């Protein structure tokens, strides 16, 4: 991994998890990338995700964050479709 890159893990749940066929992947990004940059990259790489991305909430290290949040090396990012507990 180049020194100007970060590596994060991304978790998927429910419908987008099924569309992707995986519940977790590691992604390398340029340093300074935001949550929005990550979503754009994932959407480009996995067109099956596109119908879900506008409804996704994102958590970093298990806390809800906004799309402009900057990601750090080692972050655990979760792509959360609208929840439906209870």
């Amino acid at each position, binding site marked *: 991994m180049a020194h100007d890159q970060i590596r994060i893990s991304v978790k998927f749940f429910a419908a987008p998890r099924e569309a992707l066929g995986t519940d977790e992947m590691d992604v390398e990004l340029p340093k300074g990338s935001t949550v929005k940059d990550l979503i754009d990259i994932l959407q480009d790489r996995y067109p099956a995700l596109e119908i879900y991305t506008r*409804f996704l909430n994102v958590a970093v290290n298990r806390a809800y964050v906004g799309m402009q949040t900057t990601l750090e090396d080692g972050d655990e990012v979760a792509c959360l479709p609208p929840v439906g*507990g209870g």
Partner: protein
Amino acid sequence: MKLFEITTKAVSADEVLARLVEPSVGGVTAFVGVVRARTDGRETDHLLYEAYPQMAEEQLRQIGGEIQDRWPSIREVAIVHRIGRLEVGETIVVIAVSSAHRQETFDATHYAIDRLKEIVPIWKKEVWEDGQAWKSEDHRGGPTG
């Protein structure tokens, strides 16, 4: 005893209530969510619940904190949500709120189930005889829009 829990095991309302009972408690209000046989005119065969367990437990704990901020007389809150495959009639979630006096436990219990449906990362798939679908009550996108 864990007060905020995501579990794959069967959930018993009595057992969750017992987690809250101590001498200063005068009343416990509980909400028990159960798998319904019909939703929107379709017969449910079973439900599949999935969670982001660590975050879900943290969010449940946050709801407990919000309740104690809003209603300082509330003594304790317990929320236990089951995940995995659930059949019709089985218990999905138990929310229990205890206090020295009953009044605020009703409002707090209502608040807890509404917040759970809003912010806790748990997902439900309805499975019918002829199909299946992920279901959410919020189609606008949830807590951070």
